[in-house]
Every structure is written in structure tokens, then in C-alpha cells.
């Protein structure tokens, strides 16, 4: 059963075994597991419920960012350097996502273990991955899903001697519309909306959409005892006036890497380690545009059928950074996001828009090491403090150089840097200019769709927020099941890893409930 804002006519009081906050990869996975085990589960989701059947997923960026994105597409870090992309709908950011589905590499799991994470090694997660990959139809992108930009990327990479690989995709019957980040109109992308959410509902879970959790409540002994929430009026995004009080035997916090720490801080839960909200990683995304001699139409077909992991791990000579520390892919932006990320204004910008069909691009996810922080302002609104700096700046510049290399090798006549002056690179000798391009706030806008780390897992309550069972060190009965618990970013797109960790969390919650 799904309750939406139109169905809420009075305040509500619920009593269940488990309240799950958030309906994305983290929350939906835990919810369906616990419901299937016979527990009463209430999923609370701040965003609305949008389906292809009702025609809600209309492929238009103005409509869809308003529906499914946390900041309606306009949220940034406090310095304006990074655009934050995150979910705000039933199914969470997976409704947005590109469906690239990587396992967390074994080397990163081993690194987590050195930071005090137990039971999340590659071998522990393997059975969960197998299940997820089956249920979400994860498979390498077949050749017919390579759009022109993907083919060009492979050609360029081939000329440079880089190894490329088909990117595993969570799709079934994809119609190649290319509107993945606006939500799939054909239910082909295997987001939580069409997979784990229906599974959870079929197993008896109840979902309240348009319901914002304001605070996690605790009993006299400091145990999580439920939540207080406000129903939102979808027409304004503001509270409708009706509230919810839910009592539960435990609470699963899965409001996403940008959301969970916010709820923790607003609830004024204990923070003895001082780590709540700290260690915010977000995989900043540098991208370059490029003009090709022939039509590319980067907005058609799937975004990233191909890519290279050659540079996933950074290489150092002693302490000196050499190269790498990112995944590298062809880029896909729909025309409106191309328009806002192309440099210039007036006639200069018009000239670039005139050649839009010939515009291609490349993108990278930086495996960041220099975290930011989430705090609240006086009104309790989140502030995301983050600046690309130190070794992350070196990685970012190196990623842009590799992008320029591959785009030129693929036949681009001109690489366009989306900095304020709109720096152009026309041959390999000019690539060194990327060392000097101003990437500070206001001069360059990065994206950041992969938040993690702000409620990190570890064995020591003095330096971490949750244990390896996902239960909070200081709040018994409160479990975190989203990438906020990752002690470091996973070095690949995170969705599959989030779900696998959520299976581990679900087992721990089941043990807790007895």
C-alpha cells in the first residue's frame, strides 16, 4: 500500500516493527528483506510517487528535476562549486541514475576492513551481488546500446592503448530513449521504483510518500523508538499541516548520503565521536565537451555502455601523486544540461548551441580523499561544505587531461572546457593548459551524484558513528543503511554496493528484532 499526499486527511499514528526512512537503494532493499521475513515495515519517503503508468515520467528536465531531484536540480555546495544531485521520490536517486552497476572492488572492501569494517569483504558481499544482479537484470551493455559517443570513446581509447570494457547495466528491454537521468518512461531501467519497492509492497510493507521525517525519537534509555514526520503538500513542497508519529522497535536510516546525517543532526542524537556529518565524500564529476566533425547526438541511447577502469586507482611515487583515481566514461547530457554547462553567453553561447548535435564529451568520477562536511544552518536547513582541493584537485586535472586526450584521439576538432573563459584545446600540445584552468567556485561547475561517508562505519565509537552491524554506536535500535556508512567512497558507481551493504544491514536488523 502506498499513501500519497492526496490521501492524507488527518494526523496519523502508527505502530510497526521497523520504520525505514528513505526508499532508495539503501532503504528499499532493507524494507523488502524485513517485510519478506514477516516484520511490519513502514517506509517513509519525503518525495512523491511517480510512475510511468500514470505518465509522470515525461522525459523533460524541467518537469522531472522538479519531481525527482532533492534540490529540484538547483542545490549546490555552499561555495557553489558543485551541483548536488540526489533523489527525492519513491525509489530515490535510482530513479535518476544511469544504471551502471559495479560491485565494490575487492581492494576497496579490503581497505574498508583496515578501517574497522567487518563482514563486508568481497566474499561476504558476493552472494548478495549475485541476487541483486539477477533481480535487476545486470548485464554488460550489448553492442546495440553503444551510441555514437560510446563508439568514439572506444576508438579514442583504442588509439591510446587503453583498455575499455562494457559497463554492467541494470536494464530490461531498454528502448534507448536516452532520458535515463530524468527517470525511465518505460520501466526498463531497473531502479528501485520497479524492483525492490514493488517487492517490499508485495511482502506487506506500507509506504508513505510525501512524508518528511523531522526527527528520530528515542526512549528514556536512549534507544531509537520511532520518528516524528510531516506530510508534505506536493503542490508546494511544504508541510500540509498533517503529521505522523510512528512508534517502532527499531529505525533504519536510509535517507541517502546527503540526507541521513541531516536527520541525525536535526534529531539531536548523540554525537560523542564528533563524526556525524563529517567525512562527506561525493565523487566530484569533471567533464569536458568536444566538437566532432559528424553528428554525435550524445543524448541518444544509453549514457555509458563503455568506459575504462584503467585509472580507477591513483598511482603514487612515494607520496607524490602520478595519475589516476577516477573512472572515465563517455558523457551523456540532454540538451538543457549541455546548454547550462557550455561556456559563455550571448552570441558566443549561441554558436555552440548551433553545433549541439556534433557535441560529444567525456566524464569522470573522482575517487575523492579530501572530504567535506554537512552542517545545519540556524533554521535547521542542511549546508554542504565541500571544496575540491589537495590531491583531489590533482586527480581532477589529470582526469580532465585524460578526457581531452581521448576526445582528441577520437577525432574531436576542438575540446571545450566548461570554465568561465571557455578554454579550447585543439591538439595534444595544448593539454598542459589544464594545469592552469581555474576550477574554483564560480569558474567551473562540477556535479556530485555519489554522496558517502558522513555517518561512517568503524569499530571504534570514538572515531566512527555506526558499528559493522550498521547499528549506531550510541543509539541502540538505530541502523544506517545507505552510503553514509561507507568509510571511504567505493571508487566505482555505488548503487550495487549500497544494496549489497543493505542486505548485510537487513540481516543485522532481523537479528535485532529476534
Amino acid at each position, binding site marked *: 500500500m502506498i499513501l500519497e*499526499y492526496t490521501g492524507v486527511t488527518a494526523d496519523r499514528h502508527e505502530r510497526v516493527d521497523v520504520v525505514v526512512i528513505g526508499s532508495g537503494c539503501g532503504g528499499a532493499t532493507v524494507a523488502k528483506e524485513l517485510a519478506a521475513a514477516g516484520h511490519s515495515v513502514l517506509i517513509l519517503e519525503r518525495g*512523491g510517487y511517480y510512475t510511468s503508468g*500514470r*505518465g*509522470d*515520467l*515525461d*522525459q*523533460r*528536465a*524541467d*518537469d522531472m528535476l*522538479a*519531481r525527482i531531484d532533492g534540490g*529540484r*536540480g*538547483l542545490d549546490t555546495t*555552499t*561555495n*557553489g*562549486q558543485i551541483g548536488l544531485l540526489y533523489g527525492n521520490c519513491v525509489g530515490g536517486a535510482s530513479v535518476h541514475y544511469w544504471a551502471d552497476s559495479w560491485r565494490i572492488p575487492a581492494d576497496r572492501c579490503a581497505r574498508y576492513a583496515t578501517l574497522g569494517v567487518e563482514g563486508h569483504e568481497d566474499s561476504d558481499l558476493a552472494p548478495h551481488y549475485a541476487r541483486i544482479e539477477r533481480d535487476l537484470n545486470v548485464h554488460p551493455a550489448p553492442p546495440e546500446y553503444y551510441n555514437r559517443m560510446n563508439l568514439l570513446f572506444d576508438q579514442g581509447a583504442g588509439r591510446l592503448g587503453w583498455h575499455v570494457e562494457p559497463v554492467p547495466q541494470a536494464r530490461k528491454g531498454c*528502448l534507448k*530513449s536516452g*532520458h535515463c537521468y530524468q527517470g525511465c*518512461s518505460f520501466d526498463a531501467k531497473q531502479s528501485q521504483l520497479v524492483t525492490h519497492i514493488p517487492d517490499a509492497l508485495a511482502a506487506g510493507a506500507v509506504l508513505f510518500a510525501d512524508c518528511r521525517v523531522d526527527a528520530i525519537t528515542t526512549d528514556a534509555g536512549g534507544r531509537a523508538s520511532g520518528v516524528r514526520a510531516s506530510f508534505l*503538500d*506536493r*503542490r*508546494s*513542497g511544504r508541510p500540509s499541516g498533517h503529521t505522523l508519529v510512528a512508534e517502532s522497535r527499531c529505525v533504519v536510516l536510509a535517507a541517502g548520503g546527503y540526507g541521513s546525517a541531516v536527520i541525525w543532526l536535526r534529531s539531536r542524537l548523540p554525537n560523542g565521536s564528533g563524526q556525524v556529518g563529517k567525512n562527506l565524500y561525493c565523487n566530484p564529476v569533471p567533464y569536458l565537451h568536444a566538437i566532432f566533425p559528424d553528428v554525435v*547526438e550524445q543524448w541518444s541511447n544509453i549514457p555509458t555502455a563503455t568506459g575504462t577502469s584503467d585509472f580507477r586507482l591513483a598511482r603514487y611515487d612515494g607520496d607524490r601523486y602520478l595519475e589516476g583515481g577516477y573512472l572515465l566514461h563517455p558523457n551523456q547530457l540532454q*540538451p*538543457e544540461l549541455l*546548454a*547550462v554547462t557550455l561556456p559563455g*553567453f*550571448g*552570441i558566443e*553561447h*549561441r554558436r555552440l*548551441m*548551433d553545433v*549541439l*548535435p556534433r557535441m560529444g564529451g567525456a566524464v569522470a568520477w573522482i575517487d575523492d580523499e579530501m572530504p*567535506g*562536511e554537512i*552542517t545545519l*544552518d540556524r*533554521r535547521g*536547513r542542511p*549546508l554542504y*561544505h565541500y*571544496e575540491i*582541493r589537495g590531491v583531489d584537485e590533482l586527480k581532477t586535472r589529470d582526469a580532465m587531461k585524460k578526457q581531452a586526450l581521448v576526445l582528441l584521439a577520437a577525432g574531436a576538432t576542438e575540446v571545450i572546457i566548461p570554465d*568561465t*573563459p571557455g578554454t579550447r584545446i585543439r591538439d595534444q600540445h595544448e593539454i598542459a593548459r589544464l594545469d592552469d584552468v581555474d576550477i574554483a*567556485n*564560480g*569558474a567551473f*561547475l562540477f556535479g556530485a551524484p555519489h554522496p558517502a561517508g558522513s555517518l561512517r562505519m568503524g569499530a571504534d565509537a570514538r572515531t566512527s558513528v555506526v558499528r559493522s552491524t550498521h547499528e549506531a554506536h550510541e543509539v541502540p535500535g538505530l541502523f544506517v543503511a545507505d552510503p553514509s556508512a561507507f568509510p571511504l567512497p567505493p571508487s566505482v558507481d555505488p548503487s550495487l554496493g549500497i544494496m549489497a551493504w543493505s542486505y548485510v544491514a537487513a540481516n543485522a536488523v532481523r537479528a535485532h528484532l529476534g
Partner: protein
Amino acid sequence: MVVGLSRRGFLQAGLLTSGALLGAAVLAGCVRSIPDTEPPGDAYPDVLSRRELAILAALADRVITPAAGTPTARDARVARRIDRELAFNDGSLAGDVRAALTLIEYGPFLDFHLRPFTRLSPAEQDTFLHTCAESGWTLRRNAFGGLRFLCLFFYYTDDRTWRSIGYGGTMVDRKLPEAANAREVLDQPLGSARA
């Protein structure tokens, strides 16, 4: 840790600077000459004042050069769509946009113009906007960058622009969201979408 200029910092610095600039403008006797006109049909913005809307519309005119046969920024009601969008934001964005508009409008005084942005000729406006875009002063750069982003987004989501940029459009029919910022709903009062 707070890195860079925080949003609140941006706002406060923006308002302080705006206040100082406004003061300078008043001293120079220029404020009375700032137009209080609004784009036709946009008499009742949701969040911005009519003057702010007029500044935004003037800025959008410079940011967007339409292709032949496509709507201008005013036809696309870019400024008014941004204003409607601000109504759905929790408030911080509206504050930033207001501060940015004040910086744009009164910024020319810093560059020894004796007129505000809306009173400059189009060529002078372009020169001034280039100064903002390339400014070493982060606040100024951010102010223009943020407004530029909004103008371009709300212009190129107007489907009448798509053919001119070689984009074939969507594969499904449009369905407006409850909290829509579309041109089609701007003359309906806020929050009047059917539940």
C-alpha cells in the same frame, strides 16, 4: 570545517555589498532612474519584486541570443519561470538570487558607470557581464554564473527552442508536475495544480 564561502556567507556578503552599492547609487542620485517596468503579463511575480524581475529579464536578454525563428528570452518568460521556481525552494536560493540581482544591477557603479545595469546599452551590458564572468572577485563571478545557469536552463527547456538546436524532443506526452515551473502555468496562482 567551512571551506570557501558558505551559502550564508554568500548571502550576507551579497546583501552587505548590495547595501553598499545601493548606498553609492542613492548618493549618485541614480536610484530614481532605475526602471520599475516589468515584462508584459508578469505584473505579479511570486517571489521577486517587479523590479527584481525586470533586472532578471534584462539579464536574460543578454545571456540568450535566440536562433532565427525561436522565441526570445522574454517570449519564453524565462525570468518569470525562474521566479516561479524560487517559490518551490525553501528560501535560501531566493535569497541568493535576490542578492545576485542586486549585485548585477548596481555592480556597474563599481566600474565607474553612472547608471545601473538596466540603464546600460546592450553593448555596455555585455561588457559588464564579461567583467563579472571573469572577475577575480568570487562573489561577482558566482552571482553571474548562477543567474546565467538559471536563464539557460529555463530557456532551453522551452520546447520551441529544440528544433533550432537539432534536438528531436521527447518520446512521450508531457504531464506537468504538481509544482510546475512551466510557462503554461505562470498565469495560474501558485499551488493551484489539481491534487
